[in-house]
């Protein structure tokens, strides 16, 4: 919580235009309908309210969405190494966005790419689920393997599309795939927040059932969990949260994988605390990462995906080695 508050404040204060914390507070309260004596200029107000606030809001919901989705999917797959990509949502979204960029059409104006990404993410997830279902049942291993297969196919199609892309399109695709919350404006932050909240809030209620599922598929059923329904609902909500994040911010790696992991090491395996904590820490981590992304090479901007991957990759490596040391190997 403290980290989250700090991250938000720093994001609002730091930037090309200097705005002191007191002025930030004044601007926020002013927009909340409360007049204060705190002084700020019109330029400061424009920068904070129209640029920094939407941007940090988008970073927060994207981070919260990815963190919660990652935590929920690790629970539902009973595997601490699952991440939102495993069910195909990220590559589906990428395929949708890249396809649209290469075709060069934008039927929905500024909404075209988010809409295509969102639809692509949900469609591919649905296909993974439908293809691994038999006699009304899905098995986790089949689900994961189907995800691997469809991710590969989506990757191939993206490559195929890139083969025909012009240089300008390639540049667009690359930036989209590296992820950024720099495009945040009030009109596109609102639907992102809405979609993420619609997915994140109900996910919080699955903590107890995910704990039972950790005992084993059969054991959870013996304790009264309808495991098939649980899996379907959690996957659908996690896909929604991820699709909302990816379609407005592009592909941002490792937050969904690493955040729940860090929390499991700190707080233990209880999903009732892990899910909300993953939302909070995910939001804080992404807000901090965005702060880095837009300040380390200022006035230019580092893609957000580069920051999270460069920080997340080494952490993941360390995690692998730690796990091996602790368990004497995998399996």
């Amino acid at each position, binding site marked *: 919580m403290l980290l989250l508050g700090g991250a938000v404040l720093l994001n609002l204060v730091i930037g090309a235009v200097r705005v002191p914390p007191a002025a930030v507070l004044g601007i926020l309260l002013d927009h909340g309908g409360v007049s204060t004596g705190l002084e700020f200029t019109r330029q400061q107000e424009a920068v904070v309210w129209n640029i920094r606030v939407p941007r940090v809001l988008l970073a927060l919901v994207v981070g919260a969405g990815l963190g919660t989705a990652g935590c929920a999917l690790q629970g539902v797959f009973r595997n601490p190494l699952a991440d939102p990509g495993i069910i195909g949502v990220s590559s589906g979204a990428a395929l949708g966005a890249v396809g649209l960029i290469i075709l060069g059409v934008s039927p929905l104006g500024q909404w075209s790419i988010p809409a295509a990404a969102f639809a692509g993410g949900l469609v591919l997830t649905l296909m993974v689920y439908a293809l691994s279902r038999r006699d009304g049942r899905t098995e986790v291993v089949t689900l994961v393997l189907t995800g691997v297969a469809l991710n590969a196919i989506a990757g191939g199609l993206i490559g195929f599309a890139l083969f025909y892309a012009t240089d300008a399109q390639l540049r667009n695709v690359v930036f989209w795939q590296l992820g950024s919350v720099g495009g945040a404006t009030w009109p596109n932050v609102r639907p992102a927040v809405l979609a993420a909240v619609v997915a994140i809030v109900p996910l919080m209620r699955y903590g107890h059932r995910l704990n*039972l599922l950790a*005992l084993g598929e059969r054991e959870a*059923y*013996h*304790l009264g*969990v309808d495991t098939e329904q649980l899996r379907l609902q959690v996957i659908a909500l996690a896909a929604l949260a991820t699709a909302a994040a990816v379609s407005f911010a592009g592909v941002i790696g490792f937050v969904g994988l690493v955040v729940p992991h860090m929390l499991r090491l700190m707080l233990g395996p*209880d999903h009732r605390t892990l899910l909300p904590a993953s939302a909070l820490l995910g939001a804080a981590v992404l807000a901090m990462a965005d702060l880095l992304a837009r300040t380390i090479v200022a006035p230019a901007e580092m893609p957000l995906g580069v920051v999270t991957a460069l920080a997340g990759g080494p952490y993941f490596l360390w995690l692998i080695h730690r796990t091996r040391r602790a368990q004497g190997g995998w399996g």
Partner: protein
Amino acid sequence: MKLEARAVSYRVGPFELVRRADVMVEPGEFVAVVGANGAGKSTLVRLLAGDLRPTEGTVLLAGKPLDRYRAPELARMRSVLPQQSRIEFSFTVRQVVEMGRSPYLGRGTTPGEHEAAVARAMAAADIERLAGRAYPGLSGGEQARTCLARVLAQDTPVVLLDEPTAALDIRHQHRVLSVVRGLAERGKAVLAVLHDLNLAAAYATRVVALHRGAVAAAGPPAEVLTAEVLSRIYEHPVDVLRVGEPPRLVVAPRPGAVTAGFGPSG
């Protein structure tokens, strides 16, 4: 509450794992299921638990077919101990046992009652000492006792156990089966797969012997655990002795002849 399998069969491709089996467990009974590897014991437990749907026949719980119950309802009527449980996340022993109470959460049971049920279950399985330890770090026997405590905490009228004693030392085998027999004497309907025939002879009120998926014999231990039946279903010569006063059954398989010529040749 009575659990009854009527002429159930279970087929996977060309293999018939359970063949037209009739098995019944009534309140107050401790039914031991015995049989060779692959005789269909675990499949039978899974059919009785509702994990698998019989290809033919029906399983009735309290007179109603199993597939007409919803999972939460079933969880308050029967508990199940599967053969082994792997848990990926480091829940503590106490957390695992507390999960056994989840079918009753939000149904008017007070926290004190939950607490008492968990404490009783942990005492019965002799794991109080382990309460704060992480489940994945326990030995096989300790894990088995933790899972058993989870099942005991669920406190259902029907209890199904798949090899509750397989990983346990002698003291804990007897301790656990005394607890299980006690459940039956308090009016629960208990069915357990047991590999150790001497334990089945000592604790069960009835024995069901499976042979290649079908019920080969069923009845009181003294009638089923005979040299003739056991030699047939295990396809190996077995003697049954009566020892001590009052006499108890002791099952003694005959040693096989030493097999010559197995190993590196030349």
